[in-house]
């Protein structure tokens, strides 16, 4: 179950897998997938289960099927490491996915741009669409609303009986929305919201405003 919100008179749907869909543009935003991370670890002798590699693509397929977007924009850290064999799997995925794919680069994206261009994936350091700024690192810019990633946000919830819970979330402040990390095998960073922040937590298959 997803959650729809309005920002600057545009409609955005927050998906429980961690993606955000801009309805008017039919644009799907996804951040911090960290492809290649599993293989990177394995290459250095850390035996992370191989099946986790495929999970990323399974989830990508699922979210694309839910929205069938025109464009998919990755907000950085699409690849965790230098080129490794997961690239081939990514090539296959790009080839079979019927949408235009854009990458706004993040700190982990060190793979040569030509490799992406060969696949018809466009690369930008940042992207401006109407009054919206798409970047990897959080940034507030006069007159724009920012969509970004990088932080892998999560929040801590407390309840009676001294209960505590930490869950990944979409983290919205006045001029900015930080997307959760989409990838399997990625960690989170706990943020403490202020009074004006809005938090959309990912609770199993739902997005819940808290």
């Amino acid at each position: 179950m997803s959650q729809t919100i309005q920002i600057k008179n545009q409609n955005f749907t927050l998906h429980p897998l961690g993606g955000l869909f801009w309805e008017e543009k039919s644009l799907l935003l996804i951040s911090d997938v960290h492809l290649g991370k599993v293989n990177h670890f394995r290459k250095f002798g850390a035996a992370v289960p191989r099946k986790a590699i495929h999970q990323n693509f399974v989830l990508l397929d699922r979210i694309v099927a839910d929205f069938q977007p025109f464009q998919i924009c990755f907000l950085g850290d699409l690849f965790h490491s230098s080129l490794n064999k997961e690239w081939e799997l990514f090539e296959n995925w790009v080839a079979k996915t019927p949408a235009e794919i854009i990458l706004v680069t993040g700190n982990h994206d060190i793979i040569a741009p030509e490799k992406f261009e060969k696949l018809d994936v466009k690369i930008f350091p940042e992207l401006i669409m109407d009054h919206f700024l798409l970047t990897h690192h959080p940034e507030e810019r006069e007159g724009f609303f920012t969509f970004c990633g990088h932080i892998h946000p999560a929040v801590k919830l407390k309840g009676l009986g001294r209960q505590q819970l930490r869950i990944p979330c979409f983290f919205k402040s006045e001029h900015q929305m930080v997307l959760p990390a989409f990838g399997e095998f990625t960690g989170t960073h706990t943020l403490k919201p202020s009074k004006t922040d809005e938090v959309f937590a990912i609770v199993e298959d739902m997005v819940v405003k808290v």
Partner: protein
Amino acid sequence: MFHIAESWFQQQSWKPFPFQKQTWTAFLEGKHGLLNAPTGSGKTYALWFPIVLNYIHNHPDYQTKHKKGLKAVWITPLRALSQEIKQSAERITQDLGTQMTVGIRTGDTSTKERSKQRTAMPDLLITTPESLHLLLSSKGYAKLFKDCTAIVVDEWHELLGTKRGVQMELGLSRLKTVCKNLRIWGISATIGNLEQAREVLLGPTSKELENSVLIKAEINKKITVKSIIPEEMETFPWRGHLGLHLLEDVIPIINNSKTTLLFTNTRSQCEIWFQKILEQHPEYAGELAMHHGSINKETRLWVEQAIRNESLRAVVCTSSLDLGVDFAPVETVIQIGGPKGVARFLQRAGRSGHRPGKESVIYFLPTHAMELIEASAMQKAVRHHAVEDRIPYLNSFDVLLQYLTTLAVSDGFYPDEIYEEVKQTFCYQALSEAQWQWLLNFLVMGSQSLKSYDEYKKVEVEDDGKFIVNSRAVAMRHRFQIGTIVGDATIHVRYQKGGYIGSIEEYFISKLSPGDVFTFAGRNLEFIRIKGMSAHVVNSTKRTNKVPSWMGGRLSFSAKMSELLREELYTAELPQNEQSPEIQSLAPMFTKQREESMVPQPHQFLIETFKTSDGYHHIFYPFEGRAIHEGMSSLLAYRISLLTPITCSLAFNDCGFELLSDKKIDIQAILDNDLFTPEYMLSDLQKSLNSNEMARRKFRDIAVISGMVFTGYPEKGVKMKHLQSSSELLFDVFKDFEDDNLLYQQAYTETFEHQLEEGRLRLALERIAQQEIVWKQCKNPTPFSFPIITDRLREKLSNEKLADRIKRMTAKLTR
């Protein structure tokens, strides 16, 4: 041969103890064995002597000619002890006119010294289990060890029941093959399962075990236990763990004895006590010192030396002073807070009156009222020598993977040969061929099948079937990671101008902001910044109550101790003249307890319920020890959740456990549905959410030991960051994608066998089934419940839909 040793003893005007002679004889007859002797009893001479005598026997021209090469290895679990051991060895080798050399090789040994040893090994080497494995990871190790005639494992009781013990078993299994004429000896303090300790050391089916002896020193030392009983019980707290209320009672004890050791249970408690004594009694300045594992080595050595010189009145310390080192001037020992174990208590008591024939005196200082019961039980335990068992690990796949990589890093190994050796050990006696194959696959492929896109690389197989690591980078990373003690990431604390003070867990430092003042190593320090893996500080005059906490393990009572504790508690109903002084002093608390609730008797099982602003408290009192309560609370919470959706947090101590919930739990339903039944215990435990959390924590160590998580090079934290994943993440990935992984499963096995002690849990449930259950609905928290309900370290459990919980929690989002 004996006359040499005996005349040496005569020269010192000593007389060898019978156990020393027995050990010499057995060793020289070529036997293996276990020597049961306490610290300070002369155990080092019991084994160094026959080693040297054996050399003299085999080399009659020993005074003129020196045959180079390693002759014996002495393993000590604490490198701090190595100096002392070296001194006693040198005394013998020199006095007997041999030209034998003695060397130390531990984590503290300089690189220069180590490479010198590589070319010319000392005759007698003192080292740790970790450093022994590092030697096994170097090329051509077999040559180094070929003339080694003896391995002595000192303080074997400390290693047994830990993964370092497993590491030792594996090391010995290799050396049995490599060394041509080896004797294996262990030295252990008294534990409940000494026979088993010998079996683990030598291998359960080995010919070494057949040809071995168990020698007991039988030095009966008089130990006197005195409880410090608060004069005014009415104002003595019901909870707490510091014990500062009784600080003034400690002062006369310190004044009346030459040197006093104050043992605390945690390093933070140690810091606080040190501060507070000095604050209230500045006259001790310069005569009071502190000793714990996080303080830098120089300071610790200085303190140890100062104890020997008798220049200190008192030392506040932790288990860091439990072992080894003979401190003759120590006259009195004070234990602050429950020591949680009889063996440990005895060991600490033994630190005082260290000279033969002298009496050991230990004071027990309770930190809250309930601990007086523990004090009373402890006296009984000491009288009956009711010492705990140390349970050895079985099938620790993580340690085995590390060991196999170690062998692959040095000269490579042939699986058939190593399998035979490994099967001989206690830990892996039941290792199946299928499991063995799984481990080999894991080393080579990182999984059980090959896939084309996979780039996994670690161990390679050569054409002749040899398993070997060819990559120098893999080898280097592995050598850095050898060992089985996994600590939290620590940060060095240094003065801005230079000067190392000690190390603190990163977790604590991360909560500080520049300018904050905290207490560490007995000083007030202002935090400036983090640079690399160091925290820079300057001295400060500001007062502070921030004391670093270290995530030490919380210890649990053994079965024996729990039983004694229950028996003590039951005496509360006896006439006063049949009670121990501790129980008598608790009379006001028992009265209060009876007003609100009751004091249970042997045939009763007490349940209390009440409400506070925290929520609804449901408290159960099995009196079985912390570990059992952890499992039982989890089990019960799970079973309740089958009746009705519930979320609760769990807390437990050695007396009982609590389910704290935002809703009332129907106790009658628990009784009606017989939720304490031992039936289906294991499967229910496995399903309870909590076991997941516990296994996750166990997995942390497993991931590091098996080499799946790289913790980074010391001092180069950042550089290797791209390889540091959190083991938590890894655990989740295994859960989702590879739950048949042996390492993942090991996390659960360890949880059930070592943490929850399922065997004991079952017995406890069976006992409860025989008892009458008494449910008291109270208006206020009772004295018994107080230490439990104020415990902030809690486990959580829930089977409610996450979304439902969130809705209720939303209002409380921390802003």
